[in-house]
């Protein structure tokens, strides 16, 4: 792996909610050249893990690093500028902004570090470089025709695509996609799958939390399985699915 392509490194991550152990000593790596699927039954700790990487949740123990830089204690917006992009299980879009405005502010906030005096008095329009990136991403998420529609007027599936596009602006090193396919129809899932599939080739690692096993089987290079906060298996989809512990925990099979 090239030096500049060091990906996400999660070490001994533990989170407790009261007496419940949501994550228990989890180690996980996501390279910038792979699409890693994270699966597990409801309550396994998948979203908790994503929130710890994104900075929305502070873990009780353990460490998260991206590209060799330790992210621990960093606010979510700083992690975003360091190259963490994410989507949300419960969508977190800005209803009054258009699709184009979503992508524009994401591009600007990430790239510039979001603090320039000129931003107080500029016209709030993308420059040539940002414009090109916005148009390219619109194309990628297939929303060019609806670019100037307020997101409030878009169906849920399109909102998830907007979130994915927003997370991609400013070329992050890793994308955390938290159940991006829930609520999407078959065609939207296909758009999303091919979009996610194309990212590792561009040096963007993907951590995909997903319940749709067909989608996971189709797009993921590697799969990791969480159960009750513990990482119980990782490897290729078929190898993992053949693992007896995974079958017991996840598919409810009695060994």
């Amino acid at each position, binding site marked *: 792996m090239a030096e500049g392509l060091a990906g996400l490194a999660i070490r001994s991550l533990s989170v407790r909610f009261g007496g419940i152990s*949501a994550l228990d000593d989890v180690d996980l790596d996501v390279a910038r050249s792979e699409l890693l699927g994270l699966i597990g039954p409801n309550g396994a700790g998948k979203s908790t893990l994503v929130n710890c990487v994104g900075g929305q949740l502070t873990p009780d123990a353990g460490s998260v690093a991206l590209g060799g830089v330790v992210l621990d204690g960093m606010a979510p917006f700083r992690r975003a500028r360091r190259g963490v992009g994410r989507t949300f299980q419960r969508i977190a879009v800005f209803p009054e902004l258009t699709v184009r405005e979503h992508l524009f502010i994401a591009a600007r906030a990430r790239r510039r570090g979001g*603090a320039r005096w000129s931003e107080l008095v500029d016209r709030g329009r993308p420059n040539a470089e940002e414009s090109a990136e916005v148009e390219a991403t619109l194309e990628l998420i297939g929303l060019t025709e609806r670019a100037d529609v307020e997101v409030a007027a878009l169906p849920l599936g399109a909102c998830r695509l907007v979130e994915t596009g927003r997370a991609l602006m400013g070329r992050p090193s890793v994308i955390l996609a938290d159940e991006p396919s829930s609520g999407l129809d078959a065609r939207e899932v296909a758009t999303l799958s091919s979009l996610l599939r194309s990212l590792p080739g561009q040096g963007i690692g993907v951590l995909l939390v997903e319940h749709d096993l067909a989608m996971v089987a189709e797009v993921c290079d590697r799969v990791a399985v969480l159960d009750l906060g513990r990482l119980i298996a990782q490897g290729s989809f078929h190898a993992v699915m053949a693992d007896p512990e995974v079958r017991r925990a996840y598919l409810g099979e009695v060994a």
Partner: protein
Amino acid sequence: MSTFLSYAVPGVPFGCTYAIVAMGLVLTYRTTGVFNFAFGAQAFVSAFTYTVLVGRGVGVWPAFVLSVVVLAPALGWVLDRFLFRRIAPTNTTAKLVSAVAVFVALPELVTLIFGSATRFSPPTLFMNPSIVYFHLFSTPINGLEFETVIVTAVVVVVVNAVLHSRVLGLTVRAAVESPRLLQLEGVRSDRVLSATWMGSSLMAGLAGVLLAPQYPTLQFNDYAVLLVAALAAAALGNLANVPLALVGGIALGVVEGLGSGYFPSSSVWHTGLLPAIPFLLLAILLVARGRLRGLEVSEDPLAGSDPPPPMPITATRGPELDRVIKLAGRALAVGAVASVLTWVPGNWAFTLTTGLVYSIIFLSITLITGMGGEVSLCQATFAGVGAFIAAQLAVHHGVPILLGAVIGALGALVVGALGALPALRLRGLPLALLTLALALLADNAVFPYSWAGGPATGLEVPRPQIGSVNLATTSSKGFFVLALVVLIVCALGVKLVQRATVGRYLDALRASPVGAESVGINPSAAKVFVFALSAGLAGLGGALYASLQQSITPADFNYQFSLIFVVVVVTTGVRTIEGAIQAGVGFVVVQQLLSYLPGRWGSGGLAIVFFALAALTYAAHPEGVVEFEKRVWTQRFERRLNRGGPSPGAMAMAATTPADRSSEAGDRRG
């Protein structure tokens, strides 16, 4: 030791009054999840009615029944039926502003009905205050103090009983969280909510009547301070723990008793620190206690089915109409300015000048609430900071008032930025409460000093001198031009920020803080920026106000003005610059018109009630009533213009209806 006890013991009954209100707040919060901001006003209404009835010869107990058992629940029912029920459960700003409106309007309303003569404290319920019943550690305990302690004990028992009724508690909480979802379960949520509000109001009324005899005269201000002190006590137990609220209330009373005993009455500690203790305590608890931060962050699972707020009509109307209306608007503005400068009589010119100055202060609310999405209850305090800096500099150092105004604005800006620092992790109601604590802190512990708020007789503030033109001598019309110029500059400045990248960031943060932060927007920087700029604008407006009025006292900038300002601007239209100007001019014009009414109706209280009633319309039209009317008229006009086809405005409206977007149910942890 005996000195210590002689200072501490009298603090206990007073602390009990804090504790009663604190337990009322806990009870309401535990059963409904709602922090009832209007609690203090409801308590005052019952206390006032009780005092009036007793004063007119009604017996103590019949008066108690009428004011507490009958009036208070009825008031709760009315508030629920006509106000709170109409507000979407997730619209925190709407809930807060409506409660603030009630808080401001109710005391004014009862004063209007019964007259504003000074009311002396009413008799106690069942014990004689002039009899010393026994001595505790050689401190005499009179009937009033003894009664307060007994009643507190009774309240503790009742509150505990209610809180331990499980079924009741669960249904009520479900109804508060999502009335619509509970409706689907076949429960009449509306009745449950009505009952809850009636119960809460009863509790407030009870507390109010019990407290009334404690103060020498009946004044609403005492009840506002009491509410904040009680809130601090309740906050000790995260608004959920009855024993801690009780202990917190009594402790607060004892600390105040000790303080007033030990500190020499002329020392800074006595005059500055002592009155500030409850507000400091509340501020510290709000900042330090994580659990309080989640106060009333409602997540109604059915909120996704709410339509999004409509776009400003200026953005959706057809281009020809837009041009015509803008032209007409400009013509109107020019006409108004020309009229003021020529034929409008002096007193009305002065009123309209005041309106322009208010507009500058109100622009600060457009910034912080309209753009920043947060409700601040200390904008009048920021205005006061600007005004007092400018005035003190002019009076004591001979600094020209306009230069002083700029320095005052910068001073307010710094205070605003510093004030934002503890508020960084707060949003919504806790943030609003923190700003209220700051406002009360300034009112009670800073502005009363003569180096800050000037002598009790008022600070004489000069009018500006521009070149050879002295605006004091050339009537108030010169000042009108000055205020107009400053207002235009400020409005353009706000517009610039609104359109700039920062404006987009604020839009994003307002809609979804988590989402905005995930793309790299720094929420703390945005909050400090908005608070500072908003405080600076308010400070500038305050300084101009001081110069216009030529004499100011701390009472001109007390917390009640902050509350009224927020209600006026939000109900008029908080999202647009025009909204702030319409609010500013409307505020003074309505006051001036109502002042022609005879007797107490013309005293100014009616204007406050008028604007608070406008909050009733706010529940239905969160975009502001002026904006709503503009939309209605524009659409009517456009339909007439092109009969047969739908208007462009109507089409834009249809495009923003919620389509098939449903919020993901539940928060499944993956």
